[in-house]
């Protein structure tokens, strides 16, 4: 894709804060995913979606909608047409709904961005006929839906995502243990969180998933103000989870804090590598197509 074409494609994308104004998460997911796919169809991006893979004989239990009726007319046999996207993989979305995710320097909070991102991934995976499940957690599991390709699963997931509210503290340990108890099949696990935790703690929580054979991608959602804060005067910053307040000077926030954030992200990335996971930093000011593209790239590599 040329730069001009890329910019043209981006220009059609809707800004996250505008998307957040849409009340329906399903509508948001559909808008984003369709936009991304339109861009992909124009690009030399191979191996996705409706690309033909093989024919196999129809067996009982297969969905009759996938019978290739042209082949049946010519050969009088029923074959199922299979595509590259139809990998029978499943995607598990782990959404952090702790209070810290409610932070947003603008109209869009990290949690809303994460909701939209999870919705888009669910929509995209559903379109791929992947089984999709969700686990919404804070310091405990708030909602769990096992991966499934059943009709209505997508709407149930979107509803669960939409109705979640950020609250309480973050604890990766307990929810991840619970998740490991329920999951048995290999698949993809996308953890959407701001990851304000000790990287080692994160490592301890994620590593067992990798040992299970899960492909884990850590999507770290951060607000622009968290990456490059701007305060004009001495400010008392209050932790949204613990209530602890710390007075900071503008000088500290402009010089030292970005360095600390960079080091924290780097530590998370190293921990992710050690756990065999991928780590993606997502800026809530960036359009959602970027994380989707990165997700697809990640999925592509997995295949």
């Amino acid at each position, binding site marked *: 894709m040329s730069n001009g074409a890329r910019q043209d494609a981006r220009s059609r994308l809707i800004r996250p804060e505008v998307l957040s104004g849409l009340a329906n998460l399903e509508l948001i997911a559909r808008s984003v995913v369709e936009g991304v796919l339109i861009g992909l169809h124009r690009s030399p991006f191979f191996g996705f979606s409706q690309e033909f893979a093989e024919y196999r004989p129809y067996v009982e239990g297969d969905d009759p909608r996938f019978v290739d009726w042209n082949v049946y007319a010519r050969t009088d046999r029923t074959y199922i047409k299979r595509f590259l996207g139809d990998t029978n993989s499943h995607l598990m979305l782990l959404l952090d709904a702790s209070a810290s995710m409610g932070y947003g320097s603008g109209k869009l909070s990290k949690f809303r961005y994460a909701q939209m991102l999870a919705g888009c991934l669910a929509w995209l995976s559903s379109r791929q006929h992947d089984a999709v499940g969700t686990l919404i957690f804070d310091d405990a599991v708030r909602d769990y839906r096992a991966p499934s390709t059943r009709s209505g699963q997508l709407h149930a997931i979107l509803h669960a995502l939409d109705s979640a509210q950020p609250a309480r503290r973050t604890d990766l340990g307990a929810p991840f243990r619970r998740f490991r108890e329920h999951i048995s099949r290999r698949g993809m696990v996308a953890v959407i969180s701001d990851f*304000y935790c000790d990287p080692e703690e994160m490592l301890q929580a994620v590593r067992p998933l990798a040992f299970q054979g899960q492909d884990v991608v850590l999507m770290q959602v951060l*607000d622009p103000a968290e990456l490059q804060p701007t305060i004009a*005067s001495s*400010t008392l*910053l209050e*932790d949204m989870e613990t209530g602890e*307040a710390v*007075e900071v000077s503008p000088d500290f926030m402009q010089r030292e804090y970005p360095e*600390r*954030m960079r080091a924290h992200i780097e530590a998370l990335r190293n921990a992710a590598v050690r756990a065999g996971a991928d780590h993606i930093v997502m800026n809530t000011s960036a359009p959602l197509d970027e994380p989707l593209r990165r997700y697809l790239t990640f999925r592509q590599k997995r295949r």
Partner: protein
Amino acid sequence: MSLLAPLFLLGLAGIALPLWLHRLQTQKPERLPISSVMLLAQSEQRLHVQKKLRFLLLLSLRILLLALVALAFAQPLWKLAAGAGLIGKAREHLIIIDNSLSMSAEGRLDAARAAADSIIGELAGGDRAQIAAAGSSIELQVAGSGGASADKAALRRALAQIRPGAGRLEYATAIGAIDSLATDSQLPLVVHLISDFQASGLSPRFADLLPHTAQARPVELQLHAVAAMAAPNYTIAAVRAAADGIHVTVRGHGTPAAPVAVHLRVNDVERGVQRQTAPADGEVTLQFTGIALNAGDNRVLAQLEPADPLVADDAHYAVLQGGGAQAVPLLTADIRGPSVTYIGAALNVAAARYRAQALRIGEFDARTLERYRWVLVDDIGALDAALANGLQKYLESGGAVLAASGARAAALQTLPLTGQSVRGVTVRNADPLSIGRVDGTHALLVNTSGWQNLSVARMLKVDAATADRVLIASEDGEPLLLERRIGTGRLLLLTSSLDNAWNDLPVQPVFVNFIAEAARWLAGDDAAGVQQLTGALLQLPTAGGGAVQVVDPEGRELLSLSATRSARSLRLPRSGIYRLVTPARETLIAVNSDPRESDLLPIDEAALTGWRNAAAAAQAVAPEEGSVQAESGSLPLAQWLLLLLALVVVAESLAGNWLLRRGTGVPS
């Protein structure tokens, strides 16, 4: 502890200001949510706590500063019980020494110094004192660094500076000056008045002799008499010119019948001695006949002999006018005209010092104008150009002119000397004008009356310039008499005539008085009297802003160059003949001591005892009225508070500056 001005404690409410400011500054900064504080430095939190602590220190300093200011204004006194130490018994002593003329009598001032020295020697520890000399004026003798001093050596040096004076002391004046002489200290005040207590110095109101101060502090008056007995004393009461010579009056106070002798000097030339027996406690006049005085002022000194206990009043100075009345040129076109008659007659009657000398305008030499103190012109329109020019210069150099108007002035378009345009002549023969307004505040007119009876048939119509002062205006508002300053001189312009052709002024009673007052005012006789008392304030003439100089009897100029134009008065410190020099003329002033100082009769013992008793009674009442107990004593804390205040100000500045440099922000 008590407070002399407790209302100032309301100033403590000002403490609310730093409290408010610090509350603004120390209240928590803007509170914003953040996802997690795990990446924030814990040191920021610790710094916040330290800053609040530092602000508390600054706040404390500022509150202390304001509290000290309010407390200092409230004037706290630390009451000390009787016998609580030297401070509790401390007193402020104000030693007033009479150095008036009478104290020059032999031994009196020395006795006063000895009494003062004794008081200084008896000063207790913690006592402070200051010394004042009281004569025609009351002056503090500065001891040490000024103010009340506890340094006895410095006080004795100040005492030694007191010299005999030539003025007069009224005791009520000295008592009334206590408030301004005493310091602001709250120590009990003891006033020592050391004097010969002349009976003539007593006030008619006895209450004026009792001390009272505006401050609520006890005041004790102690009278120290240095002359219990009357001393006989002769003095020269008067020297005056008579037709046959000079008469000198000698007055004896408490004297027996005895011969007295007077030496007379006129213009520094010995003119003889006269001896005569003076009656007991009475006057005698000695006549120096056959002495012809020079024209103008003559310096006369009458010296009494033999010398008596009070030498300072044995000489008497006088300035006597010689040569009869001074001529005043009456410049006229007709030396036989009615104005000459009227003015001549009026001057003869009203002002013996002057006589009109009618001179024809065409024959008068303007160069001789400087000889005359003032000049009369009966018709300003008759002046020729040369004379008008001469008069103009005469006025500018300080001369004085009374100019009237007449038929010749009516014919002019512009008046000489004033340059005023003549708009015509008001003619009211059938219905003469009366006077509409008289400026009774002017020195010329303050002693005249009867102008309302004046009828004016004709008068010039001229406009008064801005600088002119209209002294009399007719009923139609036209100026009848106006004053104009020309240079340092002064001109009176009468827009009507000085004869009875245009008005009936010459035949009105006010005319003589007017001419007399005009002569006095134009000649400047009111500016400085030729006889003054020692210690009196000589009012210096200020007309025209010209320089004035006063030369004392020794020939020294008393005014500095800058003061010659700015000084308005001058104290005459001693007897003698002074010269008052103005651009226009030189005036001799004879200065003699107040004759009441020559009467050395002291207050009788009963009256002095009554005075002491009344002062003691007033002192006994004072503690009940006041808030301070004299017996217990009190230590004023204001000065210590001010010292502490200064230290707190410094500490506050240092703390504020330190915080500012630390970049933590200081509430202002």
